[in-house]
């Protein structure tokens, strides 16, 4: 047997050698401990802060809570738009399956359940870091059935959630579409500007775009502590969303609705304005686009259908389309002539239905003419022959001077983008002198030829006629107030200019415009018993070879009432409608009726 197992002790030499061997092992072990302690010093003391951040990033999720968009109200406090809760399908990249095949299966299942393209889902996830906990919104406006489908399979679909967000809702599908504008997710260009995050809802047109900064509000958020499985453990911090500001517009919802109803089935524009302060009470353009479908998700086909529509529903015809003013322009010629003294109310001519200037023959709209007419009658009957000659007497320079003073040829400055300025003809320059060509002046004096205006310009012009020369900047927004009623913005109204005519001239204009409606003039269709309506018809002839000449002329009617002390201006334009007196005037009548005689009933209804 060997020594050790027999219990025999070793010699002192062997004992010492053994001790040294043990100490050698101990030294190695202690050295290793020093290395470990060095590593701990590095991790905990030198790099500790970085790892602390990493541990917070691990456990804290930020769940954004969308702020409700501010509401737009009409002048009486009736909402023009509202918010309702809408369901949005979102993906949380970090919580999706990590395995590419299993993730593809999840996304595939979602695609099948909702009948949406698989590629959309894939793209949405591919755009962001797979480590991100911020939900990526892939489809807005889920139906309740869709929500049920997803929620039922919640456990099979990790990382797929349904969020509830406030979404715009409208009184009707096309209500005030051009005025309000639609709200959609920020597009790539807007994202580049850096003011928006992906998935933010942004006003894209109309007032929603103009006032987006105010309407957006501030999104709130919840800082949630989660465990490793992503299950929420507790709420660490909560920031309430700050709702967007309220906007009080100048619109009267009832008049807006009446105007839109009146345009039903036609292409055209209506502007209703208060001549006392330039407030736009209604602003309708038809055809309109389905604004409710533009909010949230619109599929490509529906989008293209709207964009490619030959009637251009996206166009705001009150501002963005320019028309020849037709006989409405005769008011400008009359004002210019009377003020300059080139015309007097006593001027008479014989209207035989034709007018010759050089080799040119200009015709009246009425076969055989109006017989002998003075200025008053020429206005009421809209006699072209009279105004051809009057125009030549007044002269191109004076006409354009007064037209310009009435605000034609430049934008009105209304609070909406892409407004067109219209056009006023210029004189030719010959040998350093301005020379007007006779034919041009003749055409201009009945609102044809090169002169172009927008319905908004006509409304402001009529307002100036009604109020005695004050040219208001059309006002759409009265004020913007935060949810706690603090005023963020207010527009007291702005005078853009004055048209200085003698009081006699103003009186003559008002009187003759009253006759247009009330004394057997062309605007008789706008006559309302019990209300003094003044107005002027216009028929913008289509030039035969122009592109827009499908069918008939554009019909104008521009009116104000009551004529003594005007409260409203109504401008109606119907594209290819025919004669102003026959088509536009009855529409104006309907609107005036609604304004003055259906008010009581409406107040009863809206409480």
């Amino acid at each position: 047997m060997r020594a050790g197992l027999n219990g025999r002790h070793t010699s002192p030499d062997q004992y010492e050698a053994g001790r040294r061997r043990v100490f050698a092992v101990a030294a190695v072990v202690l050295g290793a401990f020093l290395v470990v302690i060095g590593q701990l010093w590095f991790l905990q003391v030198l790099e500790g802060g970085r790892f602390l951040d990493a541990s917070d990033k691990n456990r804290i999720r930020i769940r954004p809570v969308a702020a409700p968009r501010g509401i737009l109200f009409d002048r009486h406090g009736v909402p023009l738009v509202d918010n309702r809760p809408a369901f949005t399908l979102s993906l949380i990249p970090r919580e999706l399956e990590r395995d590419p095949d299993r993730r593809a299966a999840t996304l595939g299942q979602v695609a099948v359940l909702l009948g949406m393209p698989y590629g959309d889902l894939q793209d949405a996830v591919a755009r962001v870091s797979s480590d991100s906990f911020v939900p990526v919104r892939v489809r807005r406006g889920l139906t309740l059935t869709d929500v049920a489908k997803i929620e039922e399979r919640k456990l099979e679909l990790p990382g797929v959630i349904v969020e509830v967000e406030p979404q715009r809702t409208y009184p009707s599908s096309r209500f005030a579409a051009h005025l309000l504008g639609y709200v959609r997710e920020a597009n790539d260009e807007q994202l580049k500007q850096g003011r928006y995050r992906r998935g933010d809802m942004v006003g894209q047109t109309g007032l929603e775009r103009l006032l987006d900064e105010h309407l957006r509000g501030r999104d709130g958020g919840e800082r949630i502590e989660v465990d490793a499985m992503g299950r929420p453990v507790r709420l660490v911090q909560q920031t309430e969303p700050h709702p967007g500001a309220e906007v009080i517009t100048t619109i009267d919802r009832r008049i807006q609705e009446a105007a839109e109803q009146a345009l039903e089935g036609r292409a055209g524009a209506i502007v209703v304005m208060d001549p006392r302060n330039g407030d736009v009470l209604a602003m309708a353009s038809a055809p309109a686009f389905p604004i409710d479908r533009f909010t949230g998700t619109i599929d490509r086909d529906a989008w293209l259908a709207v964009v490619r529509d030959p009637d251009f529903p996206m166009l705001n015809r009150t501002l963005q389309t320019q028309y020849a003013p037709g006989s409405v322009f005769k008011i400008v010629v009359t004002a210019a002539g009377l003020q300059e003294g080139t015309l007097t109310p006593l001027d008479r001519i014989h209207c035989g239905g034709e007018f010759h200037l050089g080799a040119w023959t200009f015709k009246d709209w009425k076969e055989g003419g109006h017989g002998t007419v003075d200025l008053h009658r020429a206005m009421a009957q809209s006699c072209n022959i009279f105004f051809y000659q009057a125009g030549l007497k007044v002269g191109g320079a004076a006409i354009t001077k007064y037209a310009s003073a009435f605000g034609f040829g430049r934008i009105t400055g209304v609070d909406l983008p892409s407004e067109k300025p219209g056009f006023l003809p210029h004189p030719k320059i010959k040998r350093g002198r301005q020379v007007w060509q006779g034919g041009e002046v003749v055409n201009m004096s009945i609102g044809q030829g090169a002169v172009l205006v927008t319905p908004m310009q006509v409304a402001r012009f009529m307002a100036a006629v009604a109020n005695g020369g004050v040219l208001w900047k059309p006002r759409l927004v009265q004020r913007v107030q935060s949810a706690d009623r603090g005023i963020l913005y207010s527009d007291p109204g702005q005078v853009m200019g004055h048209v200085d005519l003698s009081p006699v001239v103003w009186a003559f204009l008002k009187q003759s415009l009253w006759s247009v409606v009330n004394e057997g003039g062309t605007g008789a269709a706008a006559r309302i018993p019990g209300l003094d309506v003044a107005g002027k018809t216009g028929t913008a002839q289509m030039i035969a070879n122009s592109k827009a000449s499908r069918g008939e002329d554009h019909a104008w009617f521009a009116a104000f009432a009551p004529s003594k002390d005007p409260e409203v201006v109504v401008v109606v334009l119907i594209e290819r409608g025919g004669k102003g007196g026959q088509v536009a005037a009855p529409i104006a009548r309907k609107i005036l009726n609604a304004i003055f005689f259906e008010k009581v009933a409406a107040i009863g209804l809206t409480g």
Partner: protein
Amino acid sequence: MVGIDRRLLQNVDWLLLVATGGLLATSAVTLGSLSVGRAGGGLVLRQLAWVGVGALALVVIASVDYRRLVRMAPMLYVLGLVGLVTVFVLGRSVSGARRWILLGPVSVQPSELFKITFVLMIAWWLTSRWAQGLGRVTIGFVIPIMAVPFVLIVKQPDLGTALLLFPVTVALLVGAGVRFRLLGALALAGVGTLPVAWFMMKDYQRERIMVYLDPFRDPLGSAYNVIQAKIAIGSGQLLGKGIAGATQSRLAFLPERHTDFIFAVFAEMWGFVGCLVLLVCYVLLLLRGFDIAAAAREPVGRLVALGATALLGSQVLINVGMVTGLLPVVGIPLPLMSYGGSSMLVSLSALGLLLSVRMRQFQ
């Protein structure tokens, strides 16, 4: 020889026992803090039950003369090998590894229990009459003694436990007085077999080594453990986040936090200072072990004490090394801290061996 006489009791190493008690208490508190406010409090109780079983084993082993155990070593070794083979036949598979055998209500890990047997076996062989002179023949036979269980354990697969056989063997060879030149030659041969080992490894094991070399290779997959452990440890900073603030551990970002990665939990809660105190506890324990080995008057006692100390020490170092990212991840529990019955039993048995040697050092 069974039975404890008064002289033996006078030689009990109280410092060793105090350090052990301290570590066990720390383990209970750490495990308990992981279950505060959630289900799973039973874990601490079960751990304490195992501490009871281990303490019993400690007392029994301490009271038996270690020389008797060493004489039984060949028999125990064969029994151990049988146990390792049994795992393949009757073993319960947990996440792809067959490491456990069910014995009634408890599952036992033969590879854990084998560690003690292995220390005794090597000590026996190096001091037996056939191994006179510690020549090439003696050393040569050490290789199969180690290789057979190594292969069996690697195949379970339990790379960590298998690898542990190396430092223990080396420590015993050094302690037995093998010349360093011979050891150097052995080490070179060992390095030569590494490529072979690479091909023997399972894919996941290779992945772990790749991840060790480059942790951000797959941050959500195989490197997840390492990264989360580093975040847990590092975020503890100098003084720790306390029990309530230890979000990495308590919110389960840290995997294996009751078992192999418990050190990271402790580090997150108590910071660098706490870690220092914990490691000093282990160093005290190990220094007692080395002292007992050095003070042993005959080679068997010295080797048994040294082997037991090396077993504990290398487990502590490999575990903390892997949790702090110094070493690749191999499944090795932290002695006396990690949750796990077999590991607790083995650690306390090793301490029992140390006590046994200590109590009989003047005999």
